[in-house]
């Protein structure tokens, strides 16, 4: 009898567990109350892994802009909800995060963390039809409205970044010799061939292109190769920091007079300052104003009031992504159209001479998938700041 009671109890416990499991599968955990009217921004954010330094900033940037909008009453009375997930900068984890967030929320906008993810999830975006996506990638491949109709880049693509630098060089020193040093990765190789063609078009020459492993340390043979080519400018791409300082230090020791340059992910103020005294004068392209820029930037003032400590350019990138997301959503709602991927992309492309509150120094226009504008900044190690070395350059 006792045994029967135990087995009945065990059976009911198992049944209850099975029912709970089935419920969890159909309605995954954290089914948090969500107003039907919420505008939802999902995010695959790399809060751990090699890009954690960027992910933490991006997350804070999106979070802050969403807070500003919600404090001001939302968008046409609708609150904005931000749902991030950590991805560790891995494509499969990022896709899992996308599936999880989209199955728990009616997502309108999505922030992706890598080129691999942007490419992988693109068919899903097309199938879903209700999501507009941007992200941390500036891959040239994504700057194609036909192939990626529901995505955009929060700045110039990597080829356009090179274009801005080369335009600046052609103005500063016509006929200059420009070396390209890039990492052996998709990220590194992205703009190289097209930029070499552009350099020739601008009357510049590319005497040497050097490819190294992404995190290489011993670059002495490459430096010798570089010194032999004696470039006036050297553009690094596809790295965050290493091996750039090693190149500069060894190059200077060997009497090189080249000016050294980088692209977006190298150009955060805190990253450049790690180069030490040899990094003085290091230049590069930056589509946004730095946190400490005071020139006509009311939005930066707002950010500084919210966060008194230095915020990275990744923060600004996340902040601007949220701003453009919600501008697209606002324009769509104002036109009384449903928030579909097509409608929001069309609304985004209607942005002409838009004032970002000084995050970008000139009014922006988004006609395709990118914002082809940027400025050349130079490191001032004494002041521990990046200072403008050119005006804003539009392509």
């Amino acid at each position, binding site marked *: 009898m006792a045994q029967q009671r135990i087995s009945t109890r065990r059976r009911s416990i198992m049944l209850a567990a099975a029912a709970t499991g089935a419920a969890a599968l159909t309605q995954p955990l*954290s089914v948090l109350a969500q107003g039907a009217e919420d505008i939802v921004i999902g995010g695959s954010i790399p809060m751990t892994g090699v890009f954690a330094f960027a992910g933490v900033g991006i997350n804070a940037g999106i979070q802050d802009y969403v807070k500003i909008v919600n404090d001001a009453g939302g968008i046409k009375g609708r609150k904005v909800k931000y749902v991030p997930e*950590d991805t560790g900068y891995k494509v499969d984890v990022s896709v899992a995060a996308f599936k999880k967030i989209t199955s728990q929320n009616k997502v309108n906008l999505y922030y992706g963390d890598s080129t*691999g993810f942007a490419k992988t999830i693109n068919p899903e975006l097309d199938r879903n039809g209700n999501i507009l996506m941007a992200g941390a990638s500036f891959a040239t*491949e994504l700057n194609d409205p036909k192939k990626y109709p529901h995505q955009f880049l929060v700045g110039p693509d990597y080829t356009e970044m090179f274009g801005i630098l080369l335009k600046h060089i052609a103005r500063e020193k016509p006929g200059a010799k420009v070396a390209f040093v890039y990492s052996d990765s998709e990220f*590194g190789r992205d703009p190289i061939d097209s930029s070499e063609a552009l350099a020739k078009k601008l009357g510049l020459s590319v005497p040497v292109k050097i490819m190294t492993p992404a995190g290489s340390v011993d670059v002495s043979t490459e430096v010798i190769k570089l010194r032999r080519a004696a470039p006036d400018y050297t553009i690094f791409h596809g790295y965050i920091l290493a091996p750039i300082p090693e190149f500069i230090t060894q190059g200077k020791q060997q009497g090189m007079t080249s000016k050294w340059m980088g692209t977006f992910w190298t150009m955060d103020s805190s990253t450049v300052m790690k180069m030490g005294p040899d990094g003085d004068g290091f230049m590069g392209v930056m589509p946004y104003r730095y946190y400490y820029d005071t020139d006509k930037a009311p939005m930066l003032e707002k950010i500084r009031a919210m966060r008194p400590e230095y915020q990275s350019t990744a923060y600004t990138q996340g902040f601007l992504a949220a701003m453009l997301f919600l501008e697209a959503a606002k324009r769509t709602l104002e036109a009384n159209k449903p928030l579909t991927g097509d409608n929001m992309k069309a609304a985004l492309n209607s942005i002409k001479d838009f004032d970002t509150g000084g995050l970008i120094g000139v009014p922006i226009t988004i006609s395709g998938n990118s914002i082809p504008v940027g400025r050349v900044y130079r490191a001032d190690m004494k002041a521990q700041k990046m200072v403008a070395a050119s005006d804003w350059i539009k392509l």
Partner: protein
Amino acid sequence: MRIGTFKESYAADAALFDSRTQHVWLGIAAALLVAFPFIASDYWLYLACLIAINVASSTGLNILTGYTGLVSLGQAAFMGLGAYTVAILQARWGTPLLLNLLAGGFVAMLGGMVVGIPSLRVKGLYLAIVTIAASFIAHFLFANFSITGGTAGLSMQPGQIFGAVLDTSFRLYWLIVPTAVLMLLGAANLFRTRIGRAFIAIRDRDISAEVLGIPLLQYKLLSFGLSSFYAGVAGGLWAYFFRVVTPESFPLSLSIFFLAAIIVGGMGSILGGVLGAVFMTLVPEMLKLIVDLLPGGTDLTVFLSPVRLVIFGALIIGFLVFEPLGLAEMWRRTRRFFHLWPFRN
């Protein structure tokens, strides 16, 4: 041992599933697998497919490492070979899906056999280094040839089978999970054959195996080949699942993931490979869900994300300290408890 099982023939003794209870449970498991897509959300379906792919690949590695005793850190590279073969065939010639998967398996098998050649001469750490070298060579091949799309990789259209376009997790489930189950059954049956027993003999003492008349090179290569075939098919499924294959899709860390899966699950046990793959895929996700349930919003997510990795690492270490034979041994102990209950085991 289960009480009351009585075998009357050698065939019954060697049967894969030997009791009625086992048949009932397998029936229930099969029914659950069939019912799962109809009750699960997109996220859980995605995870189920990913688990099935990982199960297929770790089962392959288990054949090589767990059963034959040959260490390999090249499983991800062989998966890559399979994935690229499938992507190239699908994107360039649009050949049928099942043919592509088989081709992916065979190309990986060839790659595995080439890498396996040194296995007659070297063992242990030396062999591990050979297989790591294979990873780097594979990465170089993927990144530097136009047929593989260079560093940008290859994008492909969704696969089709009997006219159905496999573009959602729901549809892919019906391809991926049955394939993984078939591969599991194949592996389980392998160790009831002469070949499987030869593998085990080589693992236990290769010199004795040779004395017994097992040609070592032939069987070691066969083991490498079979293991890589599994990886190749898993890679092919991966390609159909994600539809983008790049050189960075199959890093060395993925090979370590599979090795960790079979160690945590239990080496030399089919169930171990399955449990290990499930554990390694699901636990990080479960930890995420737990973090999500805590109050504190996104600030807490930022703070707890690195902590989550530490907990995951600690869990693996904990398992190995307290149960070096892996999850499969825990499962066996649990089963024994129920077989003998209410008596002490």
